[in-house]
């Protein structure tokens, strides 16, 4: 077992943000529209005999009918549980035998599929990937098994206080919006789920023109185009629009949710609805959030709550920017007895960044990190594949890495104050605390 000094986790990945440093005008990859309707993003890398395939499929929670929460995720996981060519066990043993990995999972805007194989096994890998996407059978026994498994997993996650806090926060911030579907919603629906529900979701959402495919690795353009045309031959097209989006709740007065658990720490999740990735203020928000709580040991929250007061191991804030407005959230775990102090300090920092301009040094440091760490955001095949997909989803252009610096560097101190005032709501936010409430004695 290893312990790290702190968990950098999502802070720096805020659903993908990259900065740039490369001076070369070299594009990160190539965008190719295949004859069959698929969009391919390709980056050739011939240093290791390996190929990575990433797919984003418009089959996430936002494609779910409101009365079927979780259908996106269960459909994705059932794809691997048997096709007209292979029973579940054989899919697993074939991918394991070549030492590769293959997975399909749900998500908010997109479901994703991912394949990683050695170059020599690319055909086997694509055969498996296309088979699970095109020919799933959704055997009733497999559905029953998966439902049981998901219900058990939901139960198990209730022993993780951080997860309990996250779920309560999600529900309170998003309300009926698709991003707000919690495991309780899923657990209530699953016993009613029918095979037909799964079949319908699959046939409406999985098709040639609902996917983006990114390939990184030891292949050339002609070869991969040929292979993709061959393996995805005959797949259907579908033009189902997404269901209408339900607006998130409007919160006028701070909402506090307290959940009692016999634990040593208060798990605090605090925040409000934020912005979508397509919001023009995105870059100013990223810089502002870096200074507030996104920048690890360079952030104000970490400096105040961990470095100066020793009150927490990890403190961070995130703007989850996706197709639709995601949440701004601060997550902290502190001993029960310090919960009030930590909440007060967090709100103080939020109010401060709204009231006073950040210093020139803070701004310069934030820009230096965000732009200077660019090469680290594309130093593995998986990261490059993720970035290619991201660029396509948000239509950022393959020169995005080259443009990024200019957009970050254009942010001013005034911009930061403005976006802090616009997107942080210290007087009308959601505060969730999962703690031993007797010891925490919350003032909120």
């Amino acid at each position, binding site marked *: 077992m290893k312990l790290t*000094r702190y968990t950098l986790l999502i802070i720096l990945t805020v659903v993908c943000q990259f900065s740039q440093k490369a001076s070369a005008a070299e594009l990160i990859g190539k965008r190719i529209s295949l004859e069959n309707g698929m969009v391919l993003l390709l980056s050739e890398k011939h240093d290791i005999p390996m190929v990575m395939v990433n797919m984003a499929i418009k089959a996430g929670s936002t494609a779910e009918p409101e009365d079927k929460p979780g259908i996106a995720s269960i459909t994705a996981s059932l794809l691997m549980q048997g096709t007209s060519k292979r029973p579940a066990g054989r899919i697993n043993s074939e991918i394991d035998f070549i030492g590769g990995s293959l997975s399909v999972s749900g998500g908010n805007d997109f479901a994703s599929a991912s394949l990683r194989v050695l170059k020599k096994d690319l055909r086997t890998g694509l055969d498996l990937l296309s088979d699970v996407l095109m020919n799933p059978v959704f055997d009733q026994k497999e559905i029953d098994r998966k439902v049981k498994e998901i219900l058990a997993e939901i139960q198990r996650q209730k022993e993780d206080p951080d997860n309990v806090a996250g779920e309560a926060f999600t529900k309170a911030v998003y309300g009926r919006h698709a991003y707000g579907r919690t495991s309780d919603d899923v657990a209530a629906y699953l016993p009613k789920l029918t095979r037909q529900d799964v079949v319908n979701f699959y046939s409406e959402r999985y098709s040639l023109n609902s996917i983006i495919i990114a390939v990184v690795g030891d292949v050339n353009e002609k070869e991969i185009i040929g292979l993709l045309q061959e393996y995805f031959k005959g797949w259907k097209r579908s033009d189902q629009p997404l269901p209408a989006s339900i607006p998130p709740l409007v919160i006028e007065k701070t909402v506090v949710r307290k959940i009692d658990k016999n634990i040593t720490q208060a798990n605090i999740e605090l925040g409000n609805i934020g912005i979508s990735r397509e919001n023009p203020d995105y870059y100013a928000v990223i810089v502002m959030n870096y200074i507030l709580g996104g920048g690890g040991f360079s952030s104000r929250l970490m400096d105040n709550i961990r470095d100066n007061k*020793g009150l927490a191991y990890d403190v961070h804030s995130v703007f989850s920017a996706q197709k639709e407005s995601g949440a701004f959230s601060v997550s902290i775990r502190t001993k029960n007895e310090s919960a009030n102090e930590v909440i007060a300090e967090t709100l103080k920092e939020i109010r401060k960044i709204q009231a006073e301009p950040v210093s020139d040094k803070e701004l310069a440091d934030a820009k230096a990190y965000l732009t200077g760490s660019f090469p680290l955001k594309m130093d593995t095949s998986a990261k490059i594949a993720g970035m290619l997909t991201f660029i396509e989803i948000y239509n950022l252009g393959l020169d995005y890495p080259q443009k990024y610096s200019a957009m970050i560097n254009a942010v001013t101190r005034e911009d930061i104050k403005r976006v802090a005032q616009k997107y942080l709501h210290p007087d009308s936010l959601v505060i969730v605390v999962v703690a031993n409430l007797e010891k925490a004695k919350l003032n909120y």
Partner: protein
Amino acid sequence: MEYVKSVILLFLYTVFVVTPALGQDMKVTEKVLPNGLKVLLKEEHKAPVITFQIWYKVGSRNEKLGTTGMSHLLEHMMFKGTKKYGPKTFSQTVMRNGGNDNAFTGKDYTAYFENFAADRIGISLDLESDRMQNLLIDPKEFLSEREVVKEERRMRTDDDPTSTMVEEMTAAAFIAHPYEWPVIGWMADINNITRDDLYNHYHTYYAPNNATIVMVGDFDTKAILPQIEKYFGSIPRGPDVPRVAAVEPRQLGERRIIVKKQAELPAVFAGYHTPDLKDKDSYALEALQGILSSGKSSRLYKSLVYEKQLALYAGGDYDNIANDPNLFYVYAGVMPGKTTEEVEKALYAEIEKLKTTPVTDEELQKAKNQIEAGFIMGQDSVFYQAMLLGQYETVANWKLLEKYLENIRAVTKEDIQRVAKEYFSEDNRTVGILVPTKN
């Protein structure tokens, strides 16, 4: 029948393709400076980045009851300033230059790293050579950081019922060796550590002759070596570090521990004493681990999770990258409505099968292919490559990696059966059970 045929074809193909790679050249340059500092350099020019890591041969294995957790707490203090650089400047300097940094502590090592764009690597040399010799450990900073580590322990262990149980199970498995206690330390011990304890720990273990620098990435070996010598060469060699003489005696019967804690589902873990990577049995045990738990076609997942639906998750974990013999864990989380007894029995049934029946050729080949593909794919990440070199060098010798695949390929069905019989006995087993309570 078609299935069998295609698998055999794949099998031959794989063997054919990988054979020429026998005896992997790791392309590592090794240099030992006069002060004893070992330097391992591996050029990788595919991306304009470098990972710099420095590995100290000290971890919870070098601690004593009463002050366990010292190595980890010291790791935290290494970011709290030297004479030259103030308490908050380390990470901020790295980040201002577009880098990421962090550190981690294990039973056998404490390691620090920075990942940078290739042109910024001088910053690592400056900062790391400085804190190898000039750490302050300010008393006020120390008291505050000790609270941070207590919060870390609450988060990772005290409020996680499965972690709590595994911690106690591991403690029960060792009676005479420091692998007994957790890396983060017991809560009372963390609270008991003083600033001077840490200062002594630092001066005992942080010296060039007890460290290895590993760099992988986009640099020129000939140009970087003089740079490393410039920054680290003048640091004086320290006294030899105290030897850890502890030897865990042979276990003479099963040990069982039970943890009752607020939780949703029970869990069962069993740990068997097994040799570390310096022993040639470790290759057979690695292949065996693959057969038991690598991928969804592996035995534990297939039997306990998929077919019998007794477990929500199941697997095996062989802790062999260690100075001294450690544990091979098998574990499972119990499905609602099932009992720990049923799950424990099913885990042992899989263990027994390994002893009584040879594994199939296909299973063994699959495990080897998985290990081999993992090894090749791991080269995609400079960080992972440096990590592997650092771990191996710290507990044994990085050169073991050059023969690694060759040794894995040589494992036979008979080896698997033999090591299963030798190590997976009831008497050599420590079992931990998590019994959920409502509050």
